[in-house]
Structures are given as C-alpha cells and as structure tokens.
C-alpha cells in the first residue's frame, strides 16, 4: 500500500512540475511591432576639431550609408601648425537624422566602458586626454594635441568598447572591441 501511495505522489508531483514549466514556457514574450519603420542607428561621422585661437583644423570621416554601399570619405581641412598646442574635441554623429544625433553623449554617459585612443605616426606629436570617467580614468573626448617640428604622416583615432581601464595608454594593450577606427593623413608645417 505504501508503495502504491508513493507512486501516486510521485506521479502527481511530476504532473505539477510538468504543467508549471509548460506555463512558464508559454508565457514568453512575443511582442509584435509591425510598423516596419526600420530606422537605423548609425555612426556616420567622426569629427575631430583642433583649435588654437583662430587656427582651427578639422579631421572628418563621413560614411552616410553605413557599412557596405559607398565607401566613406576623409576630409582634413588643412595642415597643422608646427610647435603649437591645440585643444581637441571629438564628435560622433549620426547625420542620417535631422538634426544630427550626437552619439558622443552616449560615450560620455558610459565613459567607464569606453576610451578614445589617438595614435599619430609623427613622433613629435603628443596627444593627452583631458577628461575623466567616474572612476578617474581618461575617456579622451577632450584632448590637448601638441605639435613639434614639421612633417607628414597619419593620425589614427579609435574608440574602444570595454577596454581594460586603467591601461598603458596604447590601444594595442587595452583589449576591448573596436567601435571606431579611422586614419587621417596629416601634415604639420
């Protein structure tokens, strides 16, 4: 008798278990948006503006149709002046929207998960980061760029998502995944 009873209990418990999970399984969300408004959230533009008084140089990369399609375009407004200290600001924009969406603000909000890296090939140029995230580590939206002697080369700007922070200041050792990587040809004269 005892055995039969325990069997019944087990069967009952099994049934309870089965039906409870079945309900959980069925209640999964299946929300349905059918408006077919496939608005894209892109970063179309990287604009690095360097200012020293009236000496303003902008480095801009623009790819309005995103990955694929037409290739992006690079635009450098002019040469940098030798032995000059520029204050730099970087902007990430989505220009498919009007007015353009400023994505730099999102990076700023999540500063502890992001860092900009500036890598010039002209050894005289130094870039220092002037802003800090909530943990006191640099973010790199605001920078100071100091030029030395004349020369030509390139400047690569990277935005790394989830880098190791703090790091040694180079993107190679910062890990993370690359959200932005653009390389501008620059000239110092």
């Amino acid at each position, binding site marked *: 008798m005892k055995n039969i009873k325990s069997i019944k209990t087990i069967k009952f418990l099994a049934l309870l278990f089965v039906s409870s999970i079945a309900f959980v399984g069925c209640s999964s969300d299946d929300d349905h948006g059918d408006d077919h408004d*496939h608005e894209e959230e892109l970063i179309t533009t990287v604009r690095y503006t360097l200012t020293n008084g009236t000496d303003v140089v902008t480095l801009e990369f623009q790819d309005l149709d*995103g990955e694929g399609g037409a290739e992006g375009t690079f635009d450098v407004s002019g040469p940098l002046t030798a032995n000059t200290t520029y204050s730099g600001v970087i902007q990430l924009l989505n220009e498919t929207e009007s007015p353009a969406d400023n994505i730099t603000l999102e990076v700023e909000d999540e500063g502890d998960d992001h860092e900009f890296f500036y890598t010039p090939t002209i050894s005289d140029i130094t870039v220092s980061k002037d802003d800090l995230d909530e943990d006191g580590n640099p973010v790199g939206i605001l920078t100071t760029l100091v030029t030395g002697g004349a020369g030509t080369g390139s400047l690569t700007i990277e935005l790394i998502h989830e880098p190791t922070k703090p790091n040694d200041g180079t993107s190679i050792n910062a890990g993370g995944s690359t959200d932005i990587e653009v390389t501008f040809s620059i000239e110092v004269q």
Partner: protein
Amino acid sequence: MGVLIAISSFSYSQNCNYIFLGEVKDFHDGTAIESATIHIKESDTYLISDLDGKFKIENLCSGTLTLTISHIGCETKTVSYSIENDVFKIISLEHHLEELNEVVVNSHLKTEGTSIEQTLNKADLEKYTDKSLGDALNSVSGVSSLNTGNTIVKPMIHGLHSSRLLIINNNVRMFDQEWGDEHAPNIDINASNKVEVIKGANTLKYGSDAIGGLILIQPKRYVARDSLFGSTMLSLNSNGRGGNVNSELIKTYKSGFYGRIQTSYKQFGDFEGPDYKLTNSGLKNINASARIGYRSFEKGFDAYYSVVSNELGILQASHIGNVNDLVTAINSRTPRVIEDFSYDIDYPKQNILHNLAKIEAYKRFKNFGKLSVQYDMQINRRKEYDLRRGDLANTPVIDLRLFTNSLQTNLNTDAIDNLKLDTGVLVRYQQNDAISGTGVSPLIPDFEKYDASIYAIGNFDLNDSSELSAGARYDFTRINAEKLYNLTDWEETYNYDELFPQFETNTVENSKILTRPEFTFHNISANVGYSKQFNNNISLFVNYGLATRVPNPSELFSDGLHHSAARIETGLLTLNKEFANKFVASLERNNQNFGFSISPYFKHINDYIQLIPVGITTTIRGAFPVWEYNQINAQIFGVDIDVNKKITDKFNYKGSISLLKGENLTEDIPLIHMPSTNFTNSISYYNDELNQLSINLTHKTVLQQNEFPDYNFYTFNPILQEDVYVDISSTPPAYSLFSFNSSVSFKAFKTGSLKLELNVENLLNTKYNEYLNRQRYFSDELGRNINLKIKINY
C-alpha cells in the same frame, strides 16, 4: 529494477540434458505475457510462451544460450545465459519508454525498405539529455556539426548543413531560420523517442532539397492499454555547473486514446576550457511538449504542440570590432575576456522561441489504402543581442519572426500486391517579419514565400529478398520580398538597376532604395532505391537521388555585419538554384556477434552556393573583409564505415570511421568547411545480472583537415603601421578525446526503476580546437566534464 531474477538451480553433471524454464512478464505490472515469440539463436528455433507466460527448453547442452524475446507492442529483448545446470528465469518485457540496452548498430525498422539510414534510439538520446540534437547526431558516422561555441550546434551530413539538410520533427518540416550558420535547430532532444539519420532514400515525401540528407525525429507509438507511466531524469555536470531536468508523463487507454506531456529545464553557467573559463557561454532553456491522439487500425488522429525557448550566451571574447581585433584574437590564443564563473547570460546572446503545432488525422479505406491529412504551424522568433551603447543597449540587433504553416495530404495505397504507392500534395505559406526598432538594417528582409508540391513514390517488392523504390516530386516556389538597398550597392556594386529594374520602386530615402524582389522557381526532383537481402544477415542498398534547392533568403538577401566573424556578409539576387546528383550505397551486416556497414557516397552539385571572402571594405570601424555568396560546381565523396564485434559474452567493440573529400571543381580547390577524417573506437562491458551494469570507454580522433581553401589575406594595421596577415583559413591540429560512461539500473518502488549514470567527457582534459567551430579563433573547446544522471521510471 532488476529485470531478471535468478530463482533456483539444480545441479547435474551430464551434458546436453539441461532444462531452461522461462517466464515472460510485463516489466510494469508483472502480469504474464502470453504468445511472446522466443527465438533460440543457437538452434535457430522458435517457441511461444503459454497462457501463464511460461516456456520450456529441454535437452540443452552446457554453454551459452541466447534468446530473443519479442511481443507486439513490446521492445524486443535479447538475453544470453551461460548454461551449466537447469535454470529458471523471469524475463521482463518493457512496453514503453526504454528501448533497453541492446547492443546493435542499426534497428531493423526502417522508414523505408530501401533507405540508407542510422538510428539513435531513446537510450542513445538520453545520453544527450542536457545537450543538443547536433551533439547527439555527432555520434553517428558521416554526421558532424558546424558549431558556434559549444551550445550552438548545427548538424551536418557529409559536410552539408543548413538548408541542405531537412529536419523533420514529428512529421513537420522544421522552419526555424535554419539558413544561418549560427542558427542551431530548435529541438528539445528530450521530446523525441527516436532520431533517424537518412543519408540516402526516398526523402521526396518531405522535400526536394535534401542534398545533404534528412533527419527524422520520431515520436513513440503507444500500445492501446490502460496505463499511466512516466519518467523523470536529472542530469548534473561539473563543467558549466549546470544540468537538465526532464519529466514526462504518459496516459494510454485500451480504447486507443493516448496523451503525453513532457517538459524540461536546462541551465548552465560559464563553461570551462582546460585552461580558462569561457566567459558568457552559459545557457538557459525551457521546453515543453504535449500530445494527444487516438489510434486504431482504421482511423486515428494525433495533435502535438511544442515550445522551445532558448537563451544562449555567446562567448564574450568573440565580440570584436574589426579585422584588427580578429588578428589580435587569432594571435593571442587566449580569450580577451576571462572573468570569474557566473550563471549570468550577458551580451552578446541569442534568444529564440520556437512554437510548433500540428494536427494529423488518417483513415483507412477497405481495399484501397490510407489517407492522411496534416496541418502544421510554426512561429520562430529570433533575437540576437550584441554589445551596444546608450538607449539601444538592451535592444536586439537582429529580431526576426518567421511564420510557417502548411497543409499536406498523403495517400498510401497498398491494394495492389507487391506495390505500395504514396502520393501527396502540399501547400505552404511562409512569412518573415523583420521586426522594426532594432536600429539596424535587417539582415533578412520582410518576405512572403508560397510553396506548392506534388509527389508520388512507389515501393515494389521484386521478390522475397529485394525491393525497388522510385519517386518523383514537383515543387513550385514563389518569394516576394521587400528590402531597402544602399543605392550605391544597387546601382554600382551589383548593377541590379539594370539586371532587375522591375524590382525597383520610386522610393529613395537616405541614399537607400526600396525594392520588391520577386522570384519564382520550378523544381523537379527524383529518386531511385534498391535493396537486396543476402544470407548471413547481409544486405545491400543502392540509392540515386536528384535534388534541387532554391537559394534561401540569407543567400539572396543577407546584407550586414556579423560581429563574431568580423565580416560583412552579402547575398546575391542573381543566384540560381542548386542541382545535385547523389549516389549512396551501403553494404550492411546486422549481427550482434559481428556486424558492419560500409557506406560510400558521391555527390555532384551544380551551382553549389558558398560564402567566401571576396575583398575588404573600409568602414567607420576600420577594415572588414566582405564575404559574398557565389556559385560553383562541387563534388563531395567519401565513405562511412561502422563495425561492431562481440569479443566475449560481456564485452563488445564498436568502431567507425568517416572519410570525406569536398572539391570546388570550378576553381580546382578544396571546399570550405568540410569535416576531416575522424574515427571512433569504443569498448563496452554489459552485465545484465549485475543490475544491468554497463561500462563504456570511447576514443575519438579527429585528424587535421589538410584540404581547405586558402582565403587568408593581408590588411594594413594603422596603429602598427604595417600589413598584418589575417589567417582565417588554417586548420587546427588533430586531436584525440577519451570518454567514459557507466550506468546501473535498480528496481525501485513497486513497478518502477531507477537508473544511475556516471560519465566523464574529455577524460584527459585535452586542449584542442575544432575546424568546424566558428569560434575556434577565440577559445579552446571544452575541458573535462563529469556528469551524473539519475533517471526514475514510474
């Protein structure tokens, strides 16, 4: 539950004068089973059990006695005894759930007389209760898998997968966005009773495009008797610190009605390689299925519903930004993110919900045949999440919902002697909805697909030992899609404005053009099969098939960035259908003492669609390789060999080897992603009298794939100011793995049983990489896992 109980014995010294008394009982309620057939192997004679389930064998010599006991509705059972004196044994037959531990390579019950197939029965499937369908199928020779990490496992037959493989679940063809390489079939292995891998056969009933083969997932047929039974199984694992619990309950009635309810819950945290944790590789699954039906000879119905809900973590280190990140990952040999163990499933991840419902009914007409009608419906919702920023952090990058429903009929006429004819029609409507709000241009656009098919298959019994089958099928397919193209891609890169001006609309916005591509395909496919039985359990099967496959939506339309592969994948509207000629043969010997199967195959595929790298594009994220679909002529050939041998009474050997060669005939180079030569050896010990103790040691070696196409390239790294080599093609070295399995069964409660299993996978904690794992650049495969399973039948 101890199936056998030795009661008493008498001692005689004389040879050939022993008596064996047997009693056949129902495993569950102990009632006597009359009219069971008992085959005595040694003398090749048959006996029938009497009203009390008893039978008697006289004049036995000392030595081994092997009996095969079968009864309608019961699992056939083979037992052997060593006869040294008179013996009385109770033999219990199982009428449900367990197929017991029969050591046979193939089951004789084929879907079709001429088909070349291999079967995984319930006991095989239970080993994989907390794994996936792909893992279970991997144990079949000739079947491998294309993996993304260790939880997304796509089965592959003879190097072919995705749309070239038909998966039929409960007579419903699965449509779960199977076109993607990282889309695993949404099937709960615990819901099925038997899985058949059909390499060559008349698969025309299910579709015209089974170039690779067919995977048939079969439910159990229940015996019409009043009974309530079930089982619960718990599986726990050291690697991933998780497991699975599965329960099922079945009610059957003498009238023919039956019902079954089943559910499983699975959860794992981060898995571990031999050297480090694989951060964010955990998963969470909830599955449930319910079935009700009625079955009699004349008529019946079957209704089935299942829901599979998967949340799969994707190795965090595999999220990379551009090709330089990929180079860093390939060169570093350790994942870039290694964190402490956690059950959390963070981004990137996949969330998939698959609903499947069907209802089928049949009626038999006298002197004519059996007519079945089936309606089925599937909804597959796939959300893929990536690491994102700001408001979109919790929004999926891919959100697709595929709705499929079909109505089909099958008429099986057997009124003519020696000829069985199956004819049927099918209509299907499919709709893909690229759910808006992802903030990303959808990888697969909105589309509607209409199918209509008609087929006829005949099976002729030529004589007692040979059978011929032949069939043909016609398919009509129409695809209507709506997709935004980059104007530059449409007009310049692919020249679609001249090739397909009829698809254009006048809507151009943000440098994108709205298009309405429409395609119509007509497909003819055919199949011929022949089988012949020889003496000594040897049989020969030969099969020829002509299969055609319409390009899938991913091949036609896909357009976008794949983060884990750091590549942009682009479909092509100009693709034609694939056209395959395939030959498969098999020579088999089905015997417990020494059995084998040698199965060579040859497939020639015209306009084989493949995805290969074609160049590099510069984006705001840096450089990306662009992968495009193209079409070539391909051929794949090879052989699968299985051997089983009884070493002694209790020891058995099983081995298999698969050899395959895939060639791109157009360019005279190897095909990409073809499985390399692999072989397995396993030794098992089984003792029925010692609580069905089973111990198994298995070894598997996978050799390095030396035949692969070289798609490596150089890319300029602006930080290092140098060209770096991107080695995406080289294959990992050979590896060998050992695994250990053991199990015992006990009698528990009154009519139930308790089964315990202890298993160890990757026994030596070997560090290895597999060519067919898309994440081989980012981490090693799994290290050692210790698994404990407890199963209660009640």
